Protein backbone atom coordinates (compact mmCIF):
# COMPACT_ATOMS: atom_id res chain seq x y z
CA UNK A 1 0.00 0.00 0.00
CA UNK A 2 2.69 2.42 1.01
CA UNK A 3 4.62 1.67 -2.12
CA UNK A 4 1.80 2.79 -4.34
CA UNK A 5 1.24 5.99 -2.34
CA UNK A 6 4.93 6.64 -2.54
CA UNK A 7 5.10 6.41 -6.28
CA UNK A 8 1.80 8.24 -6.71
CA UNK A 9 2.53 11.31 -4.58
CA UNK A 10 5.72 12.37 -6.23
CA UNK A 11 6.05 11.67 -9.91
CA UNK A 12 9.31 13.47 -10.70
CA UNK A 13 8.61 16.35 -13.01
CA UNK A 14 11.33 16.52 -15.63
CA UNK A 15 11.82 20.24 -15.04
CA UNK A 16 11.89 20.08 -11.23
CA UNK A 17 15.30 21.77 -11.28
CA UNK A 18 13.92 24.60 -13.38
CA UNK A 19 10.95 25.05 -11.05
CA UNK A 20 13.28 25.28 -8.07
CA UNK A 21 15.38 27.90 -9.78
CA UNK A 22 12.29 29.87 -10.74
CA UNK A 23 10.94 30.00 -7.20
CA UNK A 24 14.34 31.05 -5.91
CA UNK A 25 14.40 33.82 -8.51
CA UNK A 26 10.93 34.85 -7.40
CA UNK A 27 12.05 34.94 -3.77
CA UNK A 28 15.03 37.15 -4.56
CA UNK A 29 12.94 39.49 -6.74
CA UNK A 30 10.36 39.75 -3.97
CA UNK A 31 13.02 40.58 -1.41
CA UNK A 32 14.53 43.31 -3.61
CA UNK A 33 11.10 44.73 -4.31
CA UNK A 34 10.20 44.76 -0.62
CA UNK A 35 13.49 46.43 0.32
CA UNK A 36 12.58 49.60 -1.57
CA UNK A 37 8.90 49.73 -0.58
CA UNK A 38 9.16 52.43 2.14
CA UNK A 39 10.96 54.73 -0.33
CA UNK A 40 8.53 54.44 -3.22
CA UNK A 41 5.13 53.44 -1.80
CA UNK A 42 2.68 55.67 0.09
CA UNK A 43 2.92 55.26 3.84
CA UNK A 44 -0.44 53.47 3.99
CA UNK A 45 0.87 50.71 1.75
CA UNK A 46 4.11 50.52 3.66
CA UNK A 47 2.00 49.95 6.77
CA UNK A 48 -0.16 47.30 5.09
CA UNK A 49 2.88 45.45 3.77
CA UNK A 50 4.51 45.56 7.20
CA UNK A 51 1.38 43.99 8.66
CA UNK A 52 1.34 41.42 5.85
CA UNK A 53 4.91 40.42 6.65
CA UNK A 54 4.10 40.11 10.35
CA UNK A 55 0.98 38.05 9.56
CA UNK A 56 3.03 35.92 7.17
CA UNK A 57 5.09 34.85 10.18
CA UNK A 58 1.85 33.78 11.88
CA UNK A 59 0.87 31.89 8.73
CA UNK A 60 4.25 30.11 8.79
CA UNK A 61 3.63 29.04 12.38
CA UNK A 62 0.43 27.31 11.21
CA UNK A 63 2.07 25.80 8.14
CA UNK A 64 4.84 24.29 10.27
CA UNK A 65 2.28 22.30 12.27
CA UNK A 66 0.49 21.03 9.17
CA UNK A 67 3.63 20.32 7.16
CA UNK A 68 5.78 18.73 9.81
CA UNK A 69 3.24 17.12 12.13
CA UNK A 70 0.22 16.71 9.86
CA UNK A 71 -2.02 18.30 12.50
CA UNK A 72 -4.27 21.36 12.58
CA UNK A 73 -3.86 24.11 15.15
CA UNK A 74 -6.55 26.74 15.59
CA UNK A 75 -5.08 28.11 18.80
CA UNK A 76 -2.15 30.03 17.32
CA UNK A 77 -3.73 33.33 18.46
CA UNK A 78 -2.73 32.32 21.98
CA UNK A 79 0.99 32.12 21.20
CA UNK A 80 0.84 35.22 19.02
CA UNK A 81 -0.84 37.12 21.84
CA UNK A 82 1.88 35.88 24.21
CA UNK A 83 4.59 37.36 21.99
CA UNK A 84 2.71 40.57 21.25
CA UNK A 85 1.80 41.32 24.86
CA UNK A 86 5.30 40.39 26.03
CA UNK A 87 6.72 43.17 23.86
CA UNK A 88 3.98 45.65 24.70
CA UNK A 89 3.96 45.08 28.46
CA UNK A 90 7.74 45.08 28.78
CA UNK A 91 7.99 48.30 26.79
CA UNK A 92 5.08 50.20 28.31
CA UNK A 93 5.39 49.08 31.92
CA UNK A 94 9.11 48.45 32.36
CA UNK A 95 10.75 50.39 29.53
CA UNK A 96 12.51 47.29 28.23
CA UNK A 97 13.92 47.75 24.69
CA UNK A 98 12.19 45.97 21.80
CA UNK A 99 14.89 43.35 21.00
CA UNK A 100 14.79 42.06 24.56
CA UNK A 101 10.99 41.96 24.36
CA UNK A 102 11.16 39.92 21.14
CA UNK A 103 13.59 37.43 22.64
CA UNK A 104 11.42 37.07 25.71
CA UNK A 105 8.20 36.76 23.68
CA UNK A 106 9.70 34.07 21.45
CA UNK A 107 11.03 32.07 24.37
CA UNK A 108 7.78 32.36 26.27
CA UNK A 109 5.90 31.21 23.17
CA UNK A 110 8.18 28.16 22.91
CA UNK A 111 7.68 27.22 26.55
CA UNK A 112 3.92 27.66 26.27
CA UNK A 113 3.90 25.49 23.14
CA UNK A 114 5.73 22.70 24.96
CA UNK A 115 3.45 22.94 27.97
CA UNK A 116 0.41 22.93 25.71
CA UNK A 117 1.42 19.91 23.65
CA UNK A 118 2.53 17.88 26.67
CA UNK A 119 -0.84 16.41 27.83
CA UNK A 120 -1.76 15.10 24.37
CA UNK A 121 1.74 14.20 23.16
CA UNK A 122 0.98 10.49 22.85
CA UNK A 123 -2.62 10.75 21.63
CA UNK A 124 -4.30 10.97 18.25
CA UNK A 125 -4.13 14.38 16.61
CA UNK A 126 -7.89 14.81 17.09
CA UNK A 127 -7.40 15.51 20.78
CA UNK A 128 -4.68 17.99 20.00
CA UNK A 129 -6.88 19.91 17.54
CA UNK A 130 -9.72 20.15 20.03
CA UNK A 131 -7.33 21.38 22.69
CA UNK A 132 -6.14 24.11 20.30
CA UNK A 133 -9.78 25.18 19.91
CA UNK A 134 -10.05 25.67 23.68
CA UNK A 135 -6.69 27.42 23.72
CA UNK A 136 -7.79 29.82 21.01
CA UNK A 137 -11.11 30.62 22.70
CA UNK A 138 -9.63 31.43 26.10
CA UNK A 139 -7.36 34.28 24.96
CA UNK A 140 -9.79 37.25 25.16
CA UNK A 141 -11.12 36.40 28.61
CA UNK A 142 -7.58 36.17 29.96
CA UNK A 143 -6.59 39.48 28.39
CA UNK A 144 -9.72 41.23 29.64
CA UNK A 145 -9.28 40.10 33.21
CA UNK A 146 -5.94 41.59 34.23
CA UNK A 147 -6.66 45.02 32.82
CA UNK A 148 -4.00 46.69 34.97
CA UNK A 149 -1.34 44.85 33.03
CA UNK A 150 -2.97 44.27 29.65
CA UNK A 151 -4.85 47.54 29.25
CA UNK A 152 -8.21 45.78 28.87
CA UNK A 153 -10.27 46.46 25.76
CA UNK A 154 -8.10 49.42 24.81
CA UNK A 155 -4.92 47.44 24.86
CA UNK A 156 -1.46 48.98 24.90
CA UNK A 157 0.35 51.16 22.40
CA UNK A 158 3.74 50.02 21.20
CA UNK A 159 6.17 52.79 20.24
CA UNK A 160 8.45 52.19 17.28
CA UNK A 161 11.53 53.46 19.12
CA UNK A 162 14.18 51.03 18.00
CA UNK A 163 16.38 53.55 16.19
CA UNK A 164 16.17 57.15 17.31
CA UNK A 165 15.50 59.65 14.56
CA UNK A 166 14.16 57.17 11.98
CA UNK A 167 10.45 57.62 11.14
CA UNK A 168 8.23 55.06 12.88
CA UNK A 169 6.70 53.70 9.68
CA UNK A 170 10.09 52.87 8.23
CA UNK A 171 11.23 51.19 11.44
CA UNK A 172 8.05 49.15 11.55
CA UNK A 173 8.43 48.02 7.97
CA UNK A 174 12.05 46.96 8.19
CA UNK A 175 11.55 45.21 11.50
CA UNK A 176 8.70 43.21 9.93
CA UNK A 177 10.79 42.44 6.84
CA UNK A 178 13.79 41.45 8.96
CA UNK A 179 11.65 39.26 11.21
CA UNK A 180 10.07 37.54 8.23
CA UNK A 181 13.49 36.94 6.65
CA UNK A 182 14.84 35.43 9.88
CA UNK A 183 11.95 32.97 10.14
CA UNK A 184 12.09 31.98 6.49
CA UNK A 185 15.84 31.38 6.58
CA UNK A 186 15.61 29.44 9.84
CA UNK A 187 12.86 27.23 8.39
CA UNK A 188 14.84 26.62 5.20
CA UNK A 189 17.73 25.43 7.36
CA UNK A 190 15.41 23.39 9.50
CA UNK A 191 14.02 21.47 6.55
CA UNK A 192 17.42 19.86 5.85
CA UNK A 193 18.42 19.44 9.48
CA UNK A 194 18.42 16.20 11.39
CA UNK A 195 15.03 17.11 12.87
CA UNK A 196 13.50 18.24 9.59
CA UNK A 197 14.37 14.85 8.12
CA UNK A 198 13.02 13.04 11.17
CA UNK A 199 9.72 14.94 11.15
CA UNK A 200 9.10 14.42 7.45
CA UNK A 201 9.72 10.69 7.89
CA UNK A 202 7.42 10.56 10.92
CA UNK A 203 4.65 12.26 8.97
CA UNK A 204 4.54 9.49 6.41
CA UNK A 205 5.58 6.52 8.53
CA UNK A 206 5.26 7.08 12.25
CA UNK A 207 6.38 3.53 13.06
CA UNK A 208 9.54 3.83 10.99
CA UNK A 209 10.36 7.13 12.66
CA UNK A 210 9.88 5.54 16.04
CA UNK A 211 12.10 2.61 15.16
CA UNK A 212 14.90 5.03 14.27
CA UNK A 213 14.60 7.18 17.37
CA UNK A 214 11.80 9.69 16.72
CA UNK A 215 8.63 8.67 18.60
CA UNK A 216 5.30 10.47 18.27
CA UNK A 217 5.73 12.32 21.57
CA UNK A 218 8.99 13.89 20.37
CA UNK A 219 7.37 14.85 17.08
CA UNK A 220 4.50 16.63 18.82
CA UNK A 221 6.63 18.44 21.36
CA UNK A 222 9.23 19.53 18.84
CA UNK A 223 6.70 20.80 16.31
CA UNK A 224 4.67 22.69 18.90
CA UNK A 225 7.72 24.25 20.49
CA UNK A 226 8.87 25.35 17.05
CA UNK A 227 5.47 26.56 15.88
CA UNK A 228 4.67 28.38 19.13
CA UNK A 229 8.13 29.94 19.12
CA UNK A 230 7.56 31.25 15.60
CA UNK A 231 4.07 32.45 16.60
CA UNK A 232 5.46 34.22 19.66
CA UNK A 233 8.15 35.83 17.53
CA UNK A 234 5.55 36.79 14.91
CA UNK A 235 3.33 38.28 17.62
CA UNK A 236 6.21 40.40 18.88
CA UNK A 237 6.86 41.66 15.37
CA UNK A 238 3.13 42.25 14.82
CA UNK A 239 2.91 44.34 17.99
CA UNK A 240 5.78 46.51 16.79
CA UNK A 241 4.53 46.76 13.20
CA UNK A 242 0.94 47.63 14.10
CA UNK A 243 1.98 49.87 17.05
CA UNK A 244 -0.80 48.49 19.21
CA UNK A 245 -2.02 45.33 20.90
CA UNK A 246 -5.62 44.73 21.92
CA UNK A 247 -7.76 41.63 22.60
CA UNK A 248 -9.67 42.10 19.35
CA UNK A 249 -6.59 41.24 17.30
CA UNK A 250 -6.15 37.88 19.00
CA UNK A 251 -9.51 36.17 18.92
CA UNK A 252 -10.00 32.54 18.02
CA UNK A 253 -11.11 33.65 14.56
CA UNK A 254 -7.73 35.23 13.86
CA UNK A 255 -6.26 31.74 14.18
CA UNK A 256 -8.77 30.47 11.64
CA UNK A 257 -7.76 33.34 9.32
CA UNK A 258 -4.12 32.32 9.70
CA UNK A 259 -5.15 28.82 8.72
CA UNK A 260 -6.84 30.26 5.63
CA UNK A 261 -3.57 32.07 4.86
CA UNK A 262 -1.69 28.81 5.27
CA UNK A 263 -4.10 26.96 2.96
CA UNK A 264 -3.89 29.56 0.17
CA UNK A 265 -0.10 29.24 0.15
CA UNK A 266 -0.41 25.43 0.25
CA UNK A 267 1.25 25.15 3.67
CA UNK A 268 4.49 26.22 2.03
CA UNK A 269 7.40 27.51 4.10
CA UNK A 270 8.96 29.19 1.04
CA UNK A 271 9.29 32.99 1.28
CA UNK A 272 7.14 34.14 -1.62
CA UNK A 273 4.36 31.69 -0.85
CA UNK A 274 4.22 32.55 2.85
CA UNK A 275 4.28 36.25 2.02
CA UNK A 276 1.33 35.75 -0.28
CA UNK A 277 -0.55 34.01 2.53
CA UNK A 278 0.12 36.92 4.86
CA UNK A 279 -0.79 39.46 2.21
CA UNK A 280 -4.06 37.69 1.44
CA UNK A 281 -5.36 37.74 4.99
CA UNK A 282 -4.16 41.31 5.61
CA UNK A 283 -5.39 42.87 2.39
CA UNK A 284 -8.82 41.28 2.05
CA UNK A 285 -10.31 42.70 5.26
CA UNK A 286 -8.91 46.12 4.28
CA UNK A 287 -10.46 46.01 0.84
CA UNK A 288 -13.79 44.77 2.17
CA UNK A 289 -13.83 46.84 5.35
CA UNK A 290 -17.40 47.97 4.67
CA UNK A 291 -18.69 44.44 4.21
CA UNK A 292 -17.35 42.69 7.30
CA UNK A 293 -19.48 39.57 7.03
CA UNK A 294 -18.43 39.02 3.41
CA UNK A 295 -14.82 38.52 4.51
CA UNK A 296 -15.65 35.33 6.37
CA UNK A 297 -17.71 33.98 3.51
CA UNK A 298 -14.92 34.71 1.05
CA UNK A 299 -12.32 33.19 3.35
CA UNK A 300 -14.37 30.05 3.78
CA UNK A 301 -15.07 29.83 0.08
CA UNK A 302 -11.44 30.40 -0.89
CA UNK A 303 -10.34 27.75 1.54
CA UNK A 304 -12.72 25.30 -0.06
CA UNK A 305 -11.73 26.20 -3.61
CA UNK A 306 -8.01 25.86 -2.92
CA UNK A 307 -8.41 22.54 -1.13
CA UNK A 308 -10.59 21.21 -3.94
CA UNK A 309 -8.27 22.45 -6.63
CA UNK A 310 -5.19 20.81 -5.18
CA UNK A 311 -6.72 17.66 -3.74
CA UNK A 312 -9.31 16.76 -6.36
CA UNK A 313 -9.07 18.74 -9.59
CA UNK A 314 -5.33 18.74 -10.20
CA UNK A 315 -4.76 15.06 -9.36
CA UNK A 316 -7.60 14.20 -11.75
CA UNK A 317 -6.05 16.29 -14.50
CA UNK A 318 -2.61 14.79 -13.87
CA UNK A 319 -4.03 11.28 -14.03
CA UNK A 320 -5.85 12.14 -17.26
CA UNK A 321 -2.68 13.51 -18.82
CA UNK A 322 -0.70 10.48 -17.72
CA UNK A 323 -3.33 8.14 -19.22
CA UNK A 324 -3.21 10.05 -22.45
CA UNK A 325 0.58 9.90 -22.55
CA UNK A 326 0.47 6.19 -21.85
CA UNK A 327 -2.01 5.67 -24.73
CA UNK A 328 0.15 7.69 -27.08
CA UNK A 329 3.18 5.71 -25.94
CA UNK A 330 1.50 2.44 -26.85
CA UNK A 331 -0.12 3.68 -30.03
Amino acid at each position, binding site marked *: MSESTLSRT*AGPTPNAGLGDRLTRLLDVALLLLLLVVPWVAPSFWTYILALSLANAIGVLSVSVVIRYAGEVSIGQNFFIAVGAYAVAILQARLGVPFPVGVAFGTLLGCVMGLAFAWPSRKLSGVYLSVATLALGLCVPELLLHWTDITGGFEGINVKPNLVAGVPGGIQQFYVALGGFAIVVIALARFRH*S*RYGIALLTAR*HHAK*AAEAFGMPLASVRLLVFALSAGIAGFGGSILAFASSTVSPNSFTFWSSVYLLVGSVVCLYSTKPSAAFFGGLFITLLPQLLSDYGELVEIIYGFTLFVVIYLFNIVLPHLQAAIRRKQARNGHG
Partner: protein
Amino acid sequence: MDMANHGAGLVAKEIKLAFGGLQVLNNVSVSFPPGVITGLIGPNGAGKTSFFNCLTGLYRPNSGDISLDGRALKGVSASRRARLGISRTFQHVALSPELSVAENVQFGLHASRKSGLADALLPLPSAWSDREESRHKAIEALSLVGLSHLADVPAGGVAPGTLRLVELARAMVGRPRVLLLDEPAAGLNSSETKDLVQTLRQIASRELVMVVVEHDMDLIMQICDVINVLNFGTLIAAGTPAEVQANPLVAEVYLGAADD
Protein backbone atom coordinates in the same frame (compact mmCIF):
# COMPACT_ATOMS: atom_id res chain seq x y z
CA MET B 1 35.93 -4.81 19.87
CA ASP B 2 37.54 -8.11 20.79
CA MET B 3 36.03 -11.55 20.42
CA ALA B 4 34.97 -11.92 24.06
CA ASN B 5 32.81 -8.85 23.82
CA HIS B 6 30.82 -9.97 20.83
CA GLY B 7 28.39 -11.22 23.44
CA ALA B 8 25.30 -13.26 23.14
CA GLY B 9 23.63 -11.18 20.46
CA LEU B 10 19.88 -10.81 20.48
CA VAL B 11 18.00 -13.34 22.58
CA ALA B 12 14.23 -13.74 22.82
CA LYS B 13 12.83 -15.99 25.56
CA GLU B 14 9.29 -17.32 25.69
CA ILE B 15 7.69 -14.40 23.93
CA LYS B 16 3.91 -14.33 24.11
CA LEU B 17 1.84 -11.73 22.31
CA ALA B 18 -1.92 -11.50 21.97
CA PHE B 19 -4.23 -8.92 20.43
CA GLY B 20 -7.56 -9.23 22.15
CA GLY B 21 -8.29 -12.94 22.00
CA LEU B 22 -5.95 -13.60 19.10
CA GLN B 23 -2.72 -15.34 20.12
CA VAL B 24 -0.12 -13.97 17.69
CA LEU B 25 3.04 -15.33 19.29
CA ASN B 26 3.08 -18.38 21.53
CA ASN B 27 6.18 -19.00 23.65
CA VAL B 28 8.68 -18.13 20.96
CA SER B 29 12.29 -18.53 22.08
CA VAL B 30 15.04 -17.83 19.57
CA SER B 31 18.56 -16.54 19.88
CA PHE B 32 20.23 -14.56 17.15
CA PRO B 33 23.99 -14.73 17.67
CA PRO B 34 26.36 -12.24 16.04
CA GLY B 35 28.23 -13.31 12.94
CA VAL B 36 25.36 -15.54 11.83
CA ILE B 37 22.72 -14.72 9.25
CA THR B 38 19.49 -16.07 10.70
CA GLY B 39 16.44 -16.65 8.55
CA LEU B 40 12.90 -16.46 9.87
CA ILE B 41 10.30 -18.10 7.65
CA GLY B 42 6.70 -19.18 7.85
CA PRO B 43 3.41 -18.82 6.00
CA ASN B 44 1.58 -15.51 5.88
CA GLY B 45 0.19 -14.59 9.26
CA ALA B 46 2.65 -16.80 11.11
CA GLY B 47 3.66 -13.84 13.27
CA LYS B 48 7.02 -12.94 11.71
CA THR B 49 6.45 -9.20 11.45
CA SER B 50 4.82 -9.12 14.90
CA PHE B 51 7.91 -10.83 16.23
CA PHE B 52 10.11 -8.17 14.60
CA ASN B 53 7.91 -5.49 16.16
CA CYS B 54 8.46 -7.06 19.57
CA LEU B 55 12.22 -7.15 19.03
CA THR B 56 12.33 -3.48 17.98
CA GLY B 57 9.97 -2.33 20.73
CA LEU B 58 7.05 -1.27 18.54
CA TYR B 59 4.93 -3.94 20.24
CA ARG B 60 5.11 -4.84 23.90
CA PRO B 61 4.89 -8.63 24.39
CA ASN B 62 2.44 -9.83 27.02
CA SER B 63 5.19 -11.94 28.56
CA GLY B 64 8.72 -13.10 27.88
CA ASP B 65 12.13 -11.45 27.82
CA ILE B 66 14.29 -9.98 25.12
CA SER B 67 17.91 -9.14 25.73
CA LEU B 68 20.76 -7.72 23.69
CA ASP B 69 24.22 -8.94 24.69
CA GLY B 70 22.87 -9.82 28.11
CA ARG B 71 21.14 -6.50 28.63
CA ALA B 72 17.40 -6.87 29.28
CA LEU B 73 15.27 -4.78 26.93
CA LYS B 74 12.07 -4.91 28.93
CA GLY B 75 10.63 -1.40 29.20
CA VAL B 76 13.19 -0.01 26.73
CA SER B 77 11.37 2.08 24.12
CA ALA B 78 11.79 1.60 20.39
CA SER B 79 13.76 4.84 20.21
CA ARG B 80 16.18 3.78 22.93
CA ARG B 81 16.60 0.41 21.22
CA ALA B 82 17.55 2.29 18.06
CA ARG B 83 20.25 4.02 20.08
CA LEU B 84 21.45 0.61 21.32
CA GLY B 85 22.02 -0.38 17.71
CA ILE B 86 18.86 -2.26 16.71
CA SER B 87 17.98 -1.35 13.15
CA ARG B 88 15.45 -2.66 10.67
CA THR B 89 13.69 -2.44 7.34
CA PHE B 90 9.93 -2.67 6.86
CA GLN B 91 7.72 -5.09 4.98
CA HIS B 92 6.05 -2.16 3.22
CA VAL B 93 8.53 0.52 2.18
CA ALA B 94 8.50 3.16 4.92
CA LEU B 95 10.42 6.09 3.46
CA SER B 96 9.33 9.69 3.11
CA PRO B 97 8.49 10.59 -0.51
CA GLU B 98 9.20 14.26 0.28
CA LEU B 99 12.82 13.66 1.21
CA SER B 100 15.65 12.97 -1.19
CA VAL B 101 17.05 9.45 -1.27
CA ALA B 102 20.17 10.58 0.61
CA GLU B 103 18.10 12.34 3.26
CA ASN B 104 16.04 9.21 3.78
CA VAL B 105 19.24 7.30 4.37
CA GLN B 106 20.54 10.03 6.69
CA PHE B 107 17.55 9.42 8.91
CA GLY B 108 19.17 6.10 9.80
CA LEU B 109 21.76 8.17 11.68
CA HIS B 110 19.15 10.13 13.63
CA ALA B 111 19.68 8.39 16.96
CA SER B 112 23.45 8.82 16.83
CA ARG B 113 23.63 12.41 15.56
CA LYS B 114 24.40 14.97 18.22
CA SER B 115 23.46 18.29 16.65
CA GLY B 116 20.64 19.92 18.57
CA LEU B 117 17.81 22.30 17.86
CA ALA B 118 19.98 25.41 17.78
CA ASP B 119 21.95 23.80 14.97
CA ALA B 120 18.74 23.01 13.14
CA LEU B 121 17.66 26.65 13.01
CA LEU B 122 20.80 28.79 13.19
CA PRO B 123 23.74 28.87 10.79
CA LEU B 124 26.29 27.46 13.25
CA PRO B 125 29.59 26.00 11.99
CA SER B 126 29.23 22.84 14.10
CA ALA B 127 26.00 22.05 12.28
CA TRP B 128 27.68 22.21 8.89
CA SER B 129 30.23 19.56 9.78
CA ASP B 130 27.51 17.32 11.23
CA ARG B 131 25.43 17.68 8.09
CA GLU B 132 28.41 17.07 5.81
CA GLU B 133 29.42 14.00 7.77
CA SER B 134 25.96 12.47 7.80
CA ARG B 135 25.52 13.10 4.10
CA HIS B 136 28.90 11.55 3.44
CA LYS B 137 27.95 8.44 5.40
CA ALA B 138 24.61 8.24 3.62
CA ILE B 139 26.26 8.31 0.22
CA GLU B 140 28.72 5.66 1.34
CA ALA B 141 25.82 3.43 2.37
CA LEU B 142 24.08 4.16 -0.90
CA SER B 143 27.12 3.14 -2.93
CA LEU B 144 27.13 -0.16 -1.03
CA VAL B 145 23.71 -0.89 -2.60
CA GLY B 146 24.80 0.71 -5.86
CA LEU B 147 22.51 3.73 -5.69
CA SER B 148 24.80 6.67 -4.96
CA HIS B 149 23.80 8.23 -8.28
CA LEU B 150 20.23 8.65 -6.96
CA ALA B 151 21.29 10.54 -3.82
CA ASP B 152 19.55 13.80 -4.65
CA VAL B 153 16.43 12.42 -6.33
CA PRO B 154 13.22 12.76 -4.29
CA ALA B 155 12.31 9.32 -2.97
CA GLY B 156 8.79 9.75 -4.31
CA GLY B 157 10.14 9.50 -7.84
CA VAL B 158 12.08 6.27 -7.42
CA ALA B 159 10.80 2.82 -8.44
CA PRO B 160 9.42 0.74 -5.53
CA GLY B 161 11.96 -2.04 -6.03
CA THR B 162 14.81 0.42 -5.77
CA LEU B 163 13.30 1.93 -2.64
CA ARG B 164 13.78 -1.42 -0.87
CA LEU B 165 17.51 -1.00 -1.38
CA VAL B 166 17.30 2.58 -0.12
CA GLU B 167 15.66 1.24 3.03
CA LEU B 168 18.44 -1.29 3.36
CA ALA B 169 20.96 1.56 3.11
CA ARG B 170 19.06 3.48 5.79
CA ALA B 171 19.08 0.46 8.10
CA MET B 172 22.83 -0.05 7.60
CA VAL B 173 24.13 3.48 7.62
CA GLY B 174 24.41 3.72 11.41
CA ARG B 175 26.56 0.54 11.57
CA PRO B 176 23.98 -1.26 13.71
CA ARG B 177 24.62 -4.12 16.08
CA VAL B 178 21.40 -5.83 14.98
CA LEU B 179 19.94 -5.68 11.49
CA LEU B 180 16.38 -6.97 11.05
CA LEU B 181 15.28 -7.27 7.42
CA ASP B 182 11.55 -7.70 6.78
CA GLU B 183 11.14 -9.19 3.29
CA PRO B 184 14.02 -7.29 1.69
CA ALA B 185 13.51 -8.98 -1.69
CA ALA B 186 9.76 -8.37 -2.07
CA GLY B 187 9.16 -6.51 -5.31
CA LEU B 188 12.70 -6.98 -6.63
CA ASN B 189 13.34 -8.62 -9.99
CA SER B 190 15.78 -11.51 -10.26
CA SER B 191 18.86 -9.46 -11.09
CA GLU B 192 18.09 -7.01 -8.29
CA THR B 193 17.66 -9.96 -5.93
CA LYS B 194 21.06 -11.30 -7.00
CA ASP B 195 22.60 -7.91 -6.19
CA LEU B 196 20.82 -7.92 -2.86
CA VAL B 197 22.28 -11.32 -1.94
CA GLN B 198 25.73 -10.02 -2.74
CA THR B 199 25.21 -6.87 -0.70
CA LEU B 200 23.92 -8.81 2.29
CA ARG B 201 26.96 -11.13 2.17
CA GLN B 202 29.17 -8.05 1.98
CA ILE B 203 27.74 -6.40 5.08
CA ALA B 204 27.59 -9.56 7.16
CA SER B 205 30.37 -9.46 9.74
CA ARG B 206 31.47 -11.19 12.92
CA GLU B 207 29.88 -8.47 15.03
CA LEU B 208 26.60 -8.10 13.22
CA VAL B 209 23.41 -9.88 14.22
CA MET B 210 21.44 -10.25 10.99
CA VAL B 211 17.90 -11.61 10.79
CA VAL B 212 16.02 -12.01 7.52
CA VAL B 213 12.30 -12.60 7.08
CA GLU B 214 11.67 -13.64 3.49
CA HIS B 215 9.33 -15.56 1.24
CA ASP B 216 11.94 -16.01 -1.47
CA MET B 217 13.20 -19.49 -0.54
CA ASP B 218 16.16 -19.37 -2.90
CA LEU B 219 17.42 -16.25 -1.19
CA ILE B 220 16.90 -17.68 2.29
CA MET B 221 18.66 -20.95 1.43
CA GLN B 222 21.53 -19.09 -0.21
CA ILE B 223 22.42 -16.63 2.52
CA CYS B 224 21.20 -17.97 5.84
CA ASP B 225 23.37 -19.97 8.19
CA VAL B 226 20.45 -20.87 10.43
CA ILE B 227 16.73 -20.91 9.71
CA ASN B 228 13.82 -20.71 12.17
CA VAL B 229 10.32 -21.64 11.09
CA LEU B 230 7.22 -20.04 12.61
CA ASN B 231 3.69 -21.33 12.13
CA PHE B 232 0.63 -19.85 13.86
CA GLY B 233 2.87 -18.01 16.29
CA THR B 234 4.78 -21.12 17.34
CA LEU B 235 8.36 -22.04 16.51
CA ILE B 236 8.14 -25.43 14.80
CA ALA B 237 11.67 -25.96 13.56
CA ALA B 238 15.19 -24.56 13.63
CA GLY B 239 18.48 -25.57 12.06
CA THR B 240 20.72 -25.25 9.04
CA PRO B 241 19.07 -24.79 5.66
CA ALA B 242 19.66 -28.43 4.86
CA GLU B 243 18.14 -29.59 8.16
CA VAL B 244 15.12 -27.38 7.75
CA GLN B 245 14.60 -28.50 4.18
CA ALA B 246 14.73 -32.11 5.34
CA ASN B 247 12.26 -31.53 8.18
CA PRO B 248 8.96 -33.16 7.18
CA LEU B 249 6.93 -30.87 9.43
CA VAL B 250 8.28 -27.79 7.67
CA ALA B 251 7.67 -29.29 4.26
CA GLU B 252 4.11 -29.94 5.30
CA VAL B 253 3.21 -26.47 6.57
CA TYR B 254 5.41 -24.36 4.41
CA LEU B 255 7.66 -25.67 1.71
CA GLY B 256 5.08 -28.16 0.57
CA ALA B 257 2.51 -25.47 0.28
CA ALA B 258 4.94 -23.23 -1.59
CA ASP B 259 5.69 -25.95 -4.14
CA ASP B 260 2.08 -26.30 -5.21
